[in-house]
């Protein structure tokens, strides 16, 4: 009996593995004895410049990736239509998908656009314009400290302040509490749409081979599914939902931090008082969204509030650090998309919660959600990074 079962299992595994084995053989055949005579023509070279960094007034660095299917050689570099000296990390020839840094010793001037052109061995050119260049700050304790402070100011503190509405929310009648939840859905919906557009914008500068738009779409969808699967395990307890909201907002704030950090890294941040204040006003609305699910019923322990606040707000700091140290549009677009997915899932979940406790589609709730969108739009005007 046992032997038969083992055999049957073995046969099942073998059956499952057979297509893979055949595929491996087929791949091996193509790699070692290609049956095709080399194909028709030559693919076009494709090199993408993901971004530039300007560590000092004498240096321009282009971060490039060979997105094409064949190796390419960067034979010359032009700066504003003039041949210029340069070095390529790892040598001038890039294998497919190879990343490299092209360093050009050029005395650039802040504010004056820089036109950079890579001339490939076949004469094809890759152009990149650095608009109004500014020095890229060196990553040191001072910068990290600044970013941490900014993160606290625009992330942790506003979310914490917003959470202080909790006692007031507890005194609300159901109808109004549901309206507050619906308002939070509006807030989150705004963030999702806003971040979605931003992700697609960043995806424009993602090297072609990484398929930026697909990365964004499936980054968001994948996160939604992932968070949904986590949420389904915990049931829809109010505290669990609050954590999910905090996680979603946290992922969104991570992306926000990333934007701040990379603006810093690219020398693009002017964190004046207006901007910081704008962020604070904008993000304070995220606080009630986090605590709204637990406003009804038993009050959770204080440590949960601290944890919720940290989960929702602190990622701004982390995002700022990552963004300043390792800016890449690919990573940036992915992070933002993950935030979008998380927020969408949270919107779904909160809608479900209102439906469970009463009616979702009341005029009050719909207007409250609309108000959430409107308030976010209005406060967003204060934030122009």
């Amino acid at each position: 009996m046992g032997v038969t079962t083992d055999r049957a299992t073995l046969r099942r595994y073998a059956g499952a593995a057979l297509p893979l084995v055949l595929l491996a053989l087929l791949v091996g055949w193509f790699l070692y004895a290609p049956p095709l005579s080399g194909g028709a023509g030559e693919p076009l070279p494709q090199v993408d410049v993901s971004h530039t960094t300007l560590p000092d007034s004498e240096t321009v660095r282009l971060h490039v990736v060979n997105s094409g299917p064949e190796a390419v050689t960067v034979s010359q570099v032009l700066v504003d239509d003039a041949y210029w000296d340069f070095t390529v990390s790892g040598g001038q020839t890039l294998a497919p998908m190879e990343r490299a840094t092209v360093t050009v010793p050029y005395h650039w001037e802040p504010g004056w656009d820089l036109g950079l052109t890579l001339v490939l061995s076949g004469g094809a050119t890759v152009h990149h314009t650095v608009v109004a260049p500014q020095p890229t700050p060196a990553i040191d304790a001072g910068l990290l400290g600044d970013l941490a402070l900014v993160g606290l100011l625009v992330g942790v503190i506003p979310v914490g302040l917003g959470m202080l509405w909790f006692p007031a929310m507890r005194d609300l009648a159901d109808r109004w509490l549901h309206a507050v939840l619906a308002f939070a859905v509006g807030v989150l919906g705004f963030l999702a749409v806003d971040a979605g557009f931003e992700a697609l914008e960043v995806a424009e500068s993602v090297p072609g081979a990484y398929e930026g738009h697909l990365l964004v779409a499936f980054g968001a969808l994948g996160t939604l599914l992932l968070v949904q699967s986590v949420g389904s395990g915990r049931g829809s307890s109010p505290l669990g939902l609050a954590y999910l909201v905090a996680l979603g907002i946290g992922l969104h704030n991570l992306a926000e931090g990333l934007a701040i950090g990379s603006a810093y890294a690219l020398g693009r941040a002017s964190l004046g008082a207006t901007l910081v204040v704008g962020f604070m006003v904008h993000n304070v609305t995220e606080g009630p969204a986090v605590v709204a699910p637990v406003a009804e019923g038993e009050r959770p322990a204080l440590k949960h509030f601290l944890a919720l606040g940290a989960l929702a707000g602190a990622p701004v700091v982390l995002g700022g650090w990552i963004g300043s140290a390792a800016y890449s549009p690919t990573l940036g677009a992915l992070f933002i998309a993950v935030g979008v997915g998380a927020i969408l899932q949270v919107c779904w979940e909160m809608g479900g919660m209102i439906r469970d406790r009463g009616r979702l589609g009341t005029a009050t709730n719909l207007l409250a959600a609309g108000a959430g969108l409107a308030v976010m739009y209005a406060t967003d005007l204060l934030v122009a990074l």
Partner: protein
Amino acid sequence: MPVDRDAARALTDTLETRLADALRGDAVDRRTVLGAMGLAGAGAAGLAGGASANGGGHDQDGGDDHHGAFGARGEYGDGFDPHEFLRTFNTGYDGQSNLTQRVYEEDGDRVREFEVNAVDTTVEIAPGVEFSAWAFQGQVPGPTLRVTEGDLVRIVFRNGSEHAHTIHPHLKNTNPVMDGVPTNGPGVLEEGESFTYTWRAQPAGVHLYHCHSLPLKAHIHRGLYGTIVVDPDPERVAERPADYCDSHPSQVTPELRDDLVAEAETRNHEYDANDDVDEMVMVMNGFDTNFDGDNEVYAANTRAFAYGVGDTDGKGDTEPRETVHPITIDRTERQRIYLVNTIEFDLVNSLHTHSQFFDYYDHGTTLTPTHDTIDTIMQCQAQRGIVELDYGDHQPGLYMFHAHQSEFAELGWMSFFEVV
């Protein structure tokens, strides 16, 4: 000129090592910071390796000044050598070894015959940058032909290119069949077809030949052009001096006539007086490598910066490279440049000489200058002329010359004389 590739490579290696060492310090600092944050390797600029041979610009001491780092990087490979091309004239008697040429008499005329083909090939126009060219005799510019006024120039042309080509002379050709245009005589010559063009070498001057197939822009800018120098015949100059200056025959004094004849003798490769002149051919050309209707490379004689200094720190120190170095000239000699403009996509090209004024003979058809004492001359496409230079008063050293469209200069048409 024989070159020592091994020595050059050793020098390059030394400079690369020095530069890599200089840069590595910087890289370590950045990595240390990143590593401490647990973000090591995340987007940190990878700096090691692939260092430049442009050594001087990266001195550790002077590392904050990169104004000398302009110009194309690296060495050219084998193939067409602008330094050799510069002073190579094909007279039918002698010239470059890969051009079959002969001289013979026919019905009282001296015939200078050249067997020229057209081929599809690639030419290196900046170090490491290959351009798909159509080329006479496999080179861009095509071979420089040199004859004497009154000779017959005969080109046995065979088209080995996939595209149809012609050869059109910028000479006073009185037979429309020989004009080398699609509408006349044999018209365009397809792959494998041949035609023999015969032209009278007139007037004296520096002239141009090029393919006249359509689309003309493509056929010229892909490389189908070359220079024909028609030397004045001193005997004819003595007989008809007014043809070679802007004076009416009644105004030509015996002194002027003697001057014209003497000048003609310095121009004519069959006279001893010509031996005292250092003669050079410079074809100002350019290449659109990315099909945007604008040139990515400009040059005198195809290779960007080939007559440049090599490496420089921008502080007065220079280091010639094997394939990129100045043109050496002797200050006790007179210099003559046969200057031809074949640039496509731009309206004009120009030559400017530093610290020097020259006499200019537009089209080279006169023996008195058409411009006296100028340091910049402008030419439209197909315009050409003779530049007469004298560095006898100058101290030895480097003297720049270039197109005075700064863009052209920085894209390759920047050169140097090293006066010794």
